[in-house]
């Protein structure tokens, strides 16, 4: 029942791990399974990548609460880099994994004493607030962090998610605006920003949502969420439009989106009839 091919060679596994490291994918179960099954016996052939892989496996093992594998990796890394703060962070995360908050904080504060700009340790401290469910504290600490490190995209994304948890949509939208400033060609950012604006509701927000959904669809014509977003926002705007020419424009846009969605479903092999007929349904969740 493994989701990956168990007949992969060790080189293929090594390449997959490299891709997942670059794309920051969280595939912890698969990493641990593939490491134990295929890559570990050939670890000595990894060359320069060896410690990167060990770190990746260690983090994946902590995620799966496989302390045996995590400890084995940490010992190997620790022996090779005895004074490394990067290795020390793993020790702090191991404490977190077993629920030992005091020692985790102790290790992270030690790292910050040695190096005040150590971003990883600061982020881990914020993550610890989130892990105990104290999202309010995580939000305030993250805001403080972003005052010094305002180009950290990962942090803005995390802050956006935290605001969304609390239904603070205007603040979440602000986070997405920061991300759009730094990456205006990212279709996913446009789409997420549009979804937040749509959720806030109101004519202006709906217009903005429609514009950003359109931009997302332009940047990636296969983004089904963006196309649905165009359809939903155009329908909403058409319903409340007072000027007939504007209404016509929205209806045309809605029809365009509807056609492209049908095309995508046809390529996928899904029967589009059920999707289309329900598209003009009545349920709306935004405030009037």
């Amino acid at each position: 029942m493994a989701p990956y091919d168990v007949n992969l060679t060790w080189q293929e596994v090594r390449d997959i791990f490299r891709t997942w490291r670059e794309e920051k994918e969280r595939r912890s179960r698969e990493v641990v399974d593939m490491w134990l099954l295929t890559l570990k016996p050939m670890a000595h052939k990894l060359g320069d990548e060896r410690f990167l892989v060990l770190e990746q496996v260690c983090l994946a093992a902590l995620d799966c609460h496989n302390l045996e594998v995590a400890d084995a990796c940490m010992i190997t890394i620790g022996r090779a880099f005895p004074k490394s703060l990067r290795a020390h962070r793993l020790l702090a995360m191991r404490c977190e994994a077993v629920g030992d908050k005091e020692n985790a904080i102790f290790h992270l504060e030690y790292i910050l004493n040695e190096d005040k700009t150590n971003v990883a340790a600061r982020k881990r401290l914020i993550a610890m607030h989130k892990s105990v469910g104290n999202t309010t504290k995580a939000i305030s600490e993250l805001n403080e962090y972003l005052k010094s490190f305002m180009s950290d995209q990962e942090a803005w994304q995390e802050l956006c998610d935290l605001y969304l948890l609390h239904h603070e949509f205007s603040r979440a939208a602000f986070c997405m605006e920061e991300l759009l400033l730094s990456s205006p060609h990212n279709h996913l950012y446009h789409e997420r920003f549009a979804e937040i604006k749509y959720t806030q509701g109101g004519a202006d927000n709906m217009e903005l949502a429609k514009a950003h959904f359109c931009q997302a669809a332009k940047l990636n014509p296969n983004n089904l969420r963006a196309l649905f977003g165009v359809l939903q926002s155009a329908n909403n705007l058409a319903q409340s439009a007072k000027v007939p020419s504007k209404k016509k424009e929205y209806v045309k846009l809605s029809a365009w989106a509807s056609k492209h969605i049908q095309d995508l479903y046809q390529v996928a092999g899904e029967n589009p009839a059920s999707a289309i007929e329900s598209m003009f349904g009545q349920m709306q969740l935004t405030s009037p």
Partner: protein
Amino acid sequence: MTEVKFSPLAYCKVILHAVKYPHASVNGVLLAPENAKRDGTLIIEDAVPLFHMALTLAPMAEVALQQIDSYASKNKLIIAGYYEASEFFDESDVRKANRMSYKIHENFPGSCFVTLRNELLSLEQRQVPLYASTKLDDSGCWSLPGKKVKLEKESVTLHAASILINLQTYDELVDFDNHLDCPSKDWTNADLELTIQEALNNPDDEDEEDSDEGVELANN
């Protein structure tokens, strides 16, 4: 408060959805037969897993509800509830319940709001970790914590759910987010339903798969 009873299919789908994304909050809707009454026991026949990212955003939720509404009426079902499993083990911040749950309640006042208690969820299922609320309090919010959900054929279902988790069947579950990423994936989970039925009908065969080989080797 009315009682809420889950069918084995609905239960397995909810649990598998939660286990598939242990690091994220997940949510979905619950379906009941169209003649479901407002009082008495609410039987949840099926569940549709929805999202594991940004649960509070409206546009995709509306698209999903429209498609599910259409699917439900074709199958003589109604949207009768909402479930959510939080990413947090301990939640010290009180958060507002998802708007979708109130919208569903507007359309069907007998609907339920089901939460999963993370501390009761385990790989070997021994008890039902789902709690349901069917009433709103004076301020219009769900009256929590709610009552433990009843389960049809409880011990067989719990055993089947444990087997499915062990076999990592949750990787086959498709939620609406998966469908939006890849439209060929079926959010009704028709194939998964067959796998779940098999686990329910043959609870011992799953264990015997390995032990049969053992017997053969011994005989040789």
